[in-house]
Structure formats: C-alpha cells, structure tokens
C-alpha cells in the first residue's frame, strides 16, 4: 500500500511536487519559448500572405526572382533553395544523432555529430548570404513609374529582356546584367529605338502596355536595378521588405543556433556534461535547432513554392 502523501499526488498532478508534463524545467522553458517564437513567425508569414492576397495579380513569382545557382548559367528556379533546404534537413538529422548519442552517454558520438551540425549551420548561413547578395545586386533591371509601379521589359516574342540585352543588343548582352549599371537615358534611347519593346507588370496576371505607353512610363519614371527596402526591381517593394525581414529573422535564428551549438560543442569537448552525468543540454539546443529547420520548411513553401 502506498502512503497517504503518494495518493494525494496521484490524484492531483497539478498541486505541486510532481511533474505533470513529464519534462524538466529547462526543457519546458525551451518549449514555451519555441511556442511563442512559432507564433511570431506565423505572424510574419501570415502578414506576408495578407500583402500577397492584396496584390495577387502582380505579386512577383519567386521562381522568376531566385534563379541563380553557383557555377550554372541561365535560369535555375528552385534548385538553390532546394539545396539550402537539404542542408538544413541534413543538419537537423545530425543533431538528432547527437542527442541520441548523448542519451547513451557516448561522448565521442556527441562531439562528432555536434561538429557536423555546426558545419551544416554555417553552410546554410553562407548560402543565405549568397542568395541575399544576388537579390540585392539584381538581375534584369526594371522600370519604376511615378506611381512606384514596377514594370519589366519584354520583346515581341514575349521574352523578358535585361537592360544589358536592350542596350548592348541581343548578341552582346547577357540575360543578367552581371552587376553592370545602366542610366535612364541609355535604357530610354534603346527603348525608343526598338518599337517591338514594351513594358509589362510582373506576376501571374500582370498588365502589358503598348510601346508608346511604355516609353512614356520610362520618360516620366526611372530605372531600378537590384533590391533594397525602398526600390525593388522584381516587383512590389513589399516583396523585398518581407523577403529581407522573414529570411533575415530566420537567418538570425540559424546564426544564433550555430553560436549556441558551438558553446555546447565546446562544453562537450571540456567534458562538462560527462561530469554532470547527463547530456540534457544537447537535447535542449537540439529542440531549438529543429525548430529553426521547422520554420524553414514553412518559409520554403510560402516564399518559394506557393
């Protein structure tokens, strides 16, 4: 027979002295932080959705924006971001392997898998920097009207042309401007010189304009190359703002994750957890690291796929 005190605890888990959630303090607090962080990220992503539903007809299509892959020429939609996703999933796997080794008190295993996790995190942050660089530098260039609408240059065949192609000609020019900057007068005189060129809004249902209207838009407006918080050649400036904000906030999480993982890795090397008798710290940072992967799964879908 159990004592009276035990009986009271069995019937009332929430009266204190027992562990109703079956988890220790540190893990619980990590979970509640992650829950609040999940709500923060869903706030950002749904705000992105609100803007997108508002500007549905001419919102930039991500696969026309992120088209570069290191070492490959031409349009490579989705490939690079697929690679980044793979790297992050992989580093999540090595993190589970580290936690798993920690539960078995296998110090060598934890050291090895934590190191791979840190390497994966670094590669991911680096890949993101590469993608930001290309996004900021820009690709084909665009015309911004006085009403801050972004318009892209097309030819009679319905191909989108870069400034490089219209100024230097189709033979000499590149499909991407490759960092070369063009002035408004250069682009304007090339536009006036070729009556087959016209401007069109980005997006699934962007409107197209006649050659005369297009020239008038450029005369009154200006050229835009690359993207920042105010001007953005890909389309609505909100697209760039949300891109910088959401992937930046996520990248900041990855970066902090790498730093925290490194601190834990260093403590594994020092033997801190061996002395403590358990590797629960690895489990806690593991939760954070998986959360970063979880958020990326959603960013990948809502920014790049949908």
């Amino acid at each position, binding site marked *: 027979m159990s004592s009276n005190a035990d009986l009271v605890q069995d019937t009332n888990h929430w009266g204190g002295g027992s562990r109703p959630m079956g988890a220790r303090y540190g893990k619980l607090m990590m979970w509640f932080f992650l829950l609040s962080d999940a*709500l923060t990220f*869903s706030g950002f992503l*749904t705000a992105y959705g609100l*803007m997108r539903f508002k500007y549905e007809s001419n919102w930039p299509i991500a696969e026309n924006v992120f088209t570069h892959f290191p070492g490959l020429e031409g349009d490579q939609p989705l490939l690079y971001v697929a690679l980044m996703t793979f790297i992050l999933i992989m580093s999540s796997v090595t993190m589970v392997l580290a936690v798993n080794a920690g539960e078995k008190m296998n110090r060598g295993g934890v050291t090895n898998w934590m190191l791979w996790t840190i390497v994966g995190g670094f590669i991911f942050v680096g890949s993101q920097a590469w993608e930001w660089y290309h996004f900021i530098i820009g690709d084909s260039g665009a015309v911004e009207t006085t009403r801050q609408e972004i318009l892209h240059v097309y030819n009679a065949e319905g191909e989108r042309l870069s400034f490089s192609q219209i100024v230097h000609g189709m033979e000499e020019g590149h499909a991407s401007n490759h960092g070369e900057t063009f002035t408004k007068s250069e682009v304007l005189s090339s536009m006036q010189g070729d009556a087959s060129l016209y401007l069109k809004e980005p997006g699934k249902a962007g409107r197209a304009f006649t050659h005369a209207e297009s020239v008038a838009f450029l005369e009154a407006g200006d050229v835009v190359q690359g993207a920042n918080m105010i001007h953005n050649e890909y389309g609505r400036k909100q697209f760039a703002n949300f891109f910088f904000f959401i992937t930046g906030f996520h990248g900041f999480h990855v970066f902090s994750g790498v730093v925290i993982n490194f601190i834990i890795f260093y403590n594994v090397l020092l033997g801190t957890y061996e002395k403590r008798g358990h590797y629960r710290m690895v489990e806690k940072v593991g939760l954070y690291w998986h959360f970063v992967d*979880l958020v990326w799964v959603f960013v990948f879908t809502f920014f790049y796929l949908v």
Partner: protein
Amino acid sequence: MAEHNGTWWIWKVFWILLVITGVEVVLGIIKPAFLLTPVIGTSILNIVFILLTLVKAGYIVQVFMHVKYEKKAMKYALYLPSLILIPYLTFILLTEGSYLFS
C-alpha cells in the same frame, strides 16, 4: 529513449523529408497543368504544397523534437495554442487581404 534501438528511425525520417522535398521541387519546376485548377482562392498545386509541408512539419515535431513520446499534458500544452491560434490568424489575414482592394 527506451522506445528506440539504433538510429534507423532517424534515417527513416530523413528519407521521408528528403523525398517530400524532392517531390515539392519537381512539382514546383514542372507545374503540371492539371494541378493548376483554381480552388478556394488558390490552386490544387498550392494545396498539395501546403499538405506536404504539414506532413514534413509533423515528422520534425513528432519524431525529431520527440513530442510523440511526451506526456499527454505536454502535447496539449504545445499543440492546442499553435493549432488554434495559427489557423485562426491565417484565416483572418488572408480573408482580409482579399478584400483590401474592394
């Protein structure tokens, strides 16, 4: 965890996540015409993407983050707020977004 032996269960989830991501990328590149039929404000393809994403998220949370093996009280504490608040917020904002121009 007493429930697991070895590491096969980790690699199983890895392959599931990899295959789903691969399917998403292939669908995103070829965009099959029969999936582009519009439904409830988006296309069938986008709904497929969202469902696949939720499957991936489920595996990460349930297996990698071990929620599958937590106590019921813990599961409720984590799942109820997120599964009520996030769909609610999404519903409100997307509905509002489609009316902002009208």
